[in-house]
């Protein structure tokens, strides 16, 4: 039986009573209701009778007691807060925070033009946060088992994300669950019945979700799917599990995108992707299909999205965001096709690997640029920002917004201390030492013909 408006339910661990205000929605396992407690409005997911099994009850209690992964990465999970029951009924649900559906969007709402399309900067942030949160979940010894666009909500403007429906989270390679995901997100070995859901199969689902976010298309929906008049379970098993072929596989043309207007957007969006992202998708959907050990890890995704976001510059003519090239090759704006001038760069030499930041007014240097962020921290705290000079038009500098002084070495060999709040001019050849990491300002690469 569903809950009725005004009905009272009880949180088992805290003993708090809530009353049901209204139904917010329905999912595959139950309904979600807005409830009011002593202090705040929250939400309750109420399981259908057939889903309210003792195993599910134990799983919820386990998640409530365990809690979400620690830190910013964990706070993005809309985690079960308490088991909720109704007097005289075996059915149950769980308490969770209420989601601001005005702020947060589902991918389908973006596609249907109901919510704004995230720009590249937001898309990088969404992707980074996704990888960061699943990294934290996996490091805590859990797997999600149902990663899909249906469980992701994001702020299209800031890129902040929420991960919903966490009741399927379980201990990696140990616990069973009632939901094994939708077939289009399933790792091929699950479809072939040769593996159970695990953190490794989560990595495949995460890659499919990221591909959907960037390309608005399924990585295996090409000529094979197009050719199936009857899109039944055997057909799906073949495309997703038995013989999956990436639509942009450079070595296997068997499943290319058909010459049909429906695929124009996928083609266009693929071309917008920076090359290292394309290369990573190719790896995960070719080698990663044959050898799950070759799948892209969450940490690798984090590095890629952090890196490509650092190269975003605006076209001076139309203001469209572009991923600046760092190899000096000529580049045209994807939107207006104007020639882009290469921006100055900040080359960062880190123990975990070098990275490059394209510098323009407002560019921020974040904690993650100079140190490997722990899984429970998104590394987003700002260390420095490119700011215009207060009196010299066209001149700019990097302001120290950290709490520690920087050491600067100018091209002529002079050295100085840059205390918090002060800026160092954006002169090529200047080197900064921040927390032991060396950052060098480099001139824009001269254009060369490709």
């Amino acid at each position, binding site marked *: 039986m569903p809950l009725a408006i005004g009905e009272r339910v009880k949180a088992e661990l805290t003993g708090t009573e809530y009353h049901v205000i209204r139904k917010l929605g329905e999912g*595959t396992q139950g309904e979600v209701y807005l409830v009011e407690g002593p202090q705040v409005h929250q939400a309750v997911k109420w399981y259908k009778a057939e889903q309210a099994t003792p195993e599910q009850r134990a799983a919820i209690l386990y998640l409530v007691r365990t809690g979400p992964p620690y830190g910013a990465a964990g706070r993005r999970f809309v985690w079960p807060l308490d088991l909720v029951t109704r007097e005289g009924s075996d059915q149950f649900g769980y308490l969770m925070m209420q989601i601001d559906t005005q702020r947060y969007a589902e991918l389908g709402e973006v596609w*249907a*033009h109901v919510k704004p399309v995230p720009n590249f900067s937001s898309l990088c942030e969404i992707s980074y946060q996704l990888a960061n949160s699943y990294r934290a979940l996996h490091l805590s010894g859990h797997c999600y088992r149902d990663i899909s666009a249906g469980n992701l909500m994001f702020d299209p403007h800031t890129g902040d994300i929420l991960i919903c429906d966490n009741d399927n989270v379980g201990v990696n390679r140990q616990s069973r669950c009632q939901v094994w995901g*939708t077939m289009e997100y399933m790792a091929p070995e699950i479809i072939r019945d040769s593996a159970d859901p695990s953190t490794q199969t989560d990595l495949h689902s995460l890659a499919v979700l990221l591909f959907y976010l960037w390309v608005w298309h399924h990585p295996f929906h090409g000529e094979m799917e197009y050719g199936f008049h009857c899109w*039944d379970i055997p057909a799906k098993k073949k495309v997703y599990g038995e013989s999956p072929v990436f639509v942009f596989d450079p070595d296997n043309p068997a499943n290319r995108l058909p010459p049909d207007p*429906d695929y*124009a*957007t996928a083609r266009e969006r693929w071309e917008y992707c920076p090359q290292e992202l394309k290369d990573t998708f190719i790896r995960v959907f070719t080698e990663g299909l044959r050898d799950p050990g070759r799948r892209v890890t969450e940490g690798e995704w984090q590095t890629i999205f952090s890196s490509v976001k650092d190269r975003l510059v605006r076209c001076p003519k139309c203001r469209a965001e572009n991923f600046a090239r760092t190899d000096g090759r000529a580049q045209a704006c994807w939107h207006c096709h104007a020639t882009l001038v290469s921006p100055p760069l900040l080359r960062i030499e880190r123990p975990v690997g070098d990275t490059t930041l394209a510098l323009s007014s407002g560019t921020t240097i974040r904690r993650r640029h100079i140190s490997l962020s722990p899984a429970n921290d998104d590394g987003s705290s700002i260390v420095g920002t490119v700011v215009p000079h207060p009196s010299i038009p066209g001149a700019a500098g990097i302001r120290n917004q950290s709490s520690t002084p920087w050491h600067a070495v100018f091209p002529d060999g002079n050295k100085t201390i840059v205390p918090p709040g002060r800026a160092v001019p954006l002169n090529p050849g200047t080197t900064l030492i921040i927390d032991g990491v060396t950052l060098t300002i480099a001139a824009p690469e001269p254009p060369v013909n490709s």
Partner: protein
Amino acid sequence: MDPPRPFLSACDPALGWAFGCSRAGASHIRSSRPCEDAFAVWSGSSGAIPCIAIAIADGHGDPRHDQSRTGSALAVQAAVDELIGFHRMHMHTIPRHILRSEFRADFPRRVTRRWRDYVQVDVGQREISLPPAGNTGNNGYTRYGSTLIAALIVGDTILIGQIGDGDVVLVRPDGTVECPIPCDTQLMGMETQSLSSRDAHLLWRTATLDRGAGGFLIAATDGVSDSFDGSEGPEFLKFVKSLVARVNEFGIESVAWSMKGWLDRYSELASGDDMTLVFVSINPVEGECGPKPGPEGTAGDEVLSTEGW
């Protein structure tokens, strides 16, 4: 093309009763234009699992969409064919909770493609030329442009998909009104989404509901809600609830017979647009409480009607 009939119906004793009615708008009649709406209702079963499928479509109707009368008819045909196929392919092979996610994942893409296939057949048969696909919003099928709403009632589930304007409202036996696909506020005052839009397969919105205690599902083209105060407007929802009250009081057949006159009157007095409404009385799932809306017609075999075909 046959003249429109007062209403068409389909019934399954276990699931419920559906009827639809489509009327040319007053402004269309004044300018000698045909009704560009279409609807289809279907009931049948696969492997002893019954289902009811319904669809309504609103052809865009202006000179750019000069084949949209056929486009809307092909849209409801494509929707019902796709829903029947979905039912046959999935009901016996996947868990019920996966059914919903499979619908959300597959139906928009597959039904859009099927509609275009049907349009291509019509183009070939009637030697109609189609403009090439452009980057500014059309996918080459502009002349046939139409909206589409489709729903499948099967097992304990109601599956709904919508592209473009129009309304779907579910009134539960306790009087609760649900609008499972909220009105698209971003597009107010703008051209509606269409099967002929670029990326049409991405423009769909879907909803999946529990059949639960049953109720009444009403799908209508925008001509109906525009005769009141628009989608989800209080007056429109009052009209929907009044329909349910009349069905409860006088029976679904009486209401079906009266619908033609009501829609003509609303069009005359208000929107002037074509009017199409499909009304489904959905029985509760066995074991669920709630008043049982009684089907009054005879148990039919497969019935397919495509008004405006």
